[in-house]
């Protein structure tokens, strides 16, 4: 009898542990958009420079080739492509919560870094929105630019008040950045432990105002309101360079 129950216990243990092989956990990437260090609220007016006020109606971008790096250097793949979207964060509480991407079933243990790309990597950028079923991050027809044969990697839109009358009809900001040349990636040092059945949150941030930095000030968005043509990638490059530089742990 004793023997029997021993075997039973052993069997139960085996069954249990096979459900939870090495001990898996969930990693949540929590992205926050900021403006000068505060949560970016859509449609909320902000000072852009000494003369201009701005509000944003959209800020979104593709993230790609996201990997966690274990303490021993072994990479753990999270996803090859996903989409981060702040467009609906039109109040402070939403903006404070930020945008999350969750990755369950990851090996528990100690990690030291996260690698991430901003934009659509070259291989995937050869595909097009109509190649994907609805719901796939790359199925967004508004983010595929036929004439460029590229996805729009990051899309920022907003309106400008230049004369201080409180009406934002003096210009617009429309930074559509796409094409292989503006793909950017980065490794962020971040030490954390993922417990078995646990959840680890990696807090990430990008400051939208900093994405417009130029020299000692900010890009002249009246003179360069849009990054709209592939022949002139100057401002798209500038924006994406700033973005990847600012992108970091919150």
């Amino acid at each position, binding site marked *: 009898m004793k023997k029997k129950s021993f075997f039973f216990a052993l069997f139960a243990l085996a069954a249990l542990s096979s459900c939870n092989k090495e001990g898996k956990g969930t990693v949540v990437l929590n992205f926050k958009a900021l403006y000068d260090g505060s949560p970016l609220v859509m449609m909320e007016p902000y000072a852009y420079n000494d003369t201009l006020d701005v509000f944003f*109606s959209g800020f979104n971008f593709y993230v790609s080739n996201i990997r966690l790096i274990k303490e021993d250097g072994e990479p753990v793949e999270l996803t090859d492509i996903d989409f981060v979207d702040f467009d609906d964060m039109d109040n402070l509480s939403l903006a404070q919560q930020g945008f999350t991407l969750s990755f369950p079933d990851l090996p528990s243990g100690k990690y030291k870094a996260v690698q991430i790309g901003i934009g659509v990597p070259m291989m995937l950028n050869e595909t097009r929105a109509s190649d994907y079923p*609805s719901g796939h991050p790359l199925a967004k*027809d508004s983010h595929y630019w*036929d004439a460029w044969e590229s996805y729009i990697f990051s899309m920022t*839109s907003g309106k400008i008040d230049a004369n201080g009358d409180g009406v934002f009809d003096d210009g617009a*900001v429309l930074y559509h950045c796409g094409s292989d040349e503006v793909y950017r990636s980065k490794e962020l040092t971040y030490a954390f432990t993922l417990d078995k059945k646990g959840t680890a949150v990696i807090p990430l941030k990008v400051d939208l105002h900093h994405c417009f930095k130029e020299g000692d000030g900010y890009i002249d968005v009246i003179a360069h309101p849009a990054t709209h043509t592939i022949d002139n990638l100057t401002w798209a490059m500038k924006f994406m360079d700033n973005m990847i530089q600012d992108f970091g742990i919150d």
Partner: protein
Amino acid sequence: MKSKLLFFSLFLLVFSCRPPEPQPPVKGDLEDIPYAPTAYHLQLPEGFPPMDIPADNPLTEEGIDLGRHLFYDPILSLDSTVSCSTCHLQEGAFTDNKAVSDGVMGLQGTRSAMAIMNLGFVTAGLFWDGRSPSLEDQALQPVTNPVEMRNDWATVEQRLRRHSDYPAMFRKAFGISDSGEISKELVVKAIAQFERTLLTFNSKFDKKFLYNDPTVEFTDSEYRGFEMFFDFPGSALPDAQCFHCHNAPLFGNNDFFNNGIEEVATLDDFPDLGRGEITGKTFDNGKFRAPTLRNLVFTAPYMHDGRFETLEEVIDQYSDHVHFADNLDENLSFPINLSESQKQDLINFLYTLTDSSLVLDERFSNPFE
């Protein structure tokens, strides 16, 4: 004590397991009609996205045929005068060519009937404001809409159950065994199946750019329009920005925009709040789903309220009269300013999206004629 309990429960078990008294089997009135539906495979062209078809409503030839009959049958309306096809006519690419549609008893709504083509690809929600999540759900609405069919579903179900042909058609499509099982859910499933087959992909544009047919040539004017529509890099022509919201291959978009047609003092002043009515967000007021630009030659007048009779008016609007509002889409914030000949080029390009096979296809026509 224990064993008594055991016997009692054993007894209960045996008793409860006894088969019920034999009853005369209830035979559905349709069971003698064979149910053997034929799966229907949509032939989607190269370059089109896959279509989401609900798992509980696969396409069958019998379902599509039933849906087509229901679509054309005024039996759905209060006084049996109005069918779906009253407002969605095949010759109008399934619009009625009216600014606002006429329902039963001459009643009128406030919006223009939308074209029904390639709708299986719409994932943002149907109607101008996206308020309906699926074609099945959408088809429930007109029947009870007080200015459209003004009916109630119990009446419709009753009429269909008593009909001389429909019970057998429902049996063949959905395998019901009794006419009493005819329900609004099955009615809208059938209609949705029919609507998913209303596809259009045989325009000059498709032939040239999707199928690379070497015999199809664009005129210089069409080609100039094409370059402007898609903001071609390196082109000396102005960027007309159209593709941002009307991208190929569907030429519509699964999102909602204010495209600047309405002059308003504040976001609360739109005569039709559109998307804002659904989300309750002021910033969504005056936004509508960007519809497809295929077959415009058949679908006038244009916009949610049918305010523009001609494409000339539409292009004038986009080129020269876009109205500012806080939620005006930024793609339209910069004046496009097309010359008269450029406007004509753009219109000529739009006409390359014409596919008259949609309006001529027998399979989509009125089965009662």
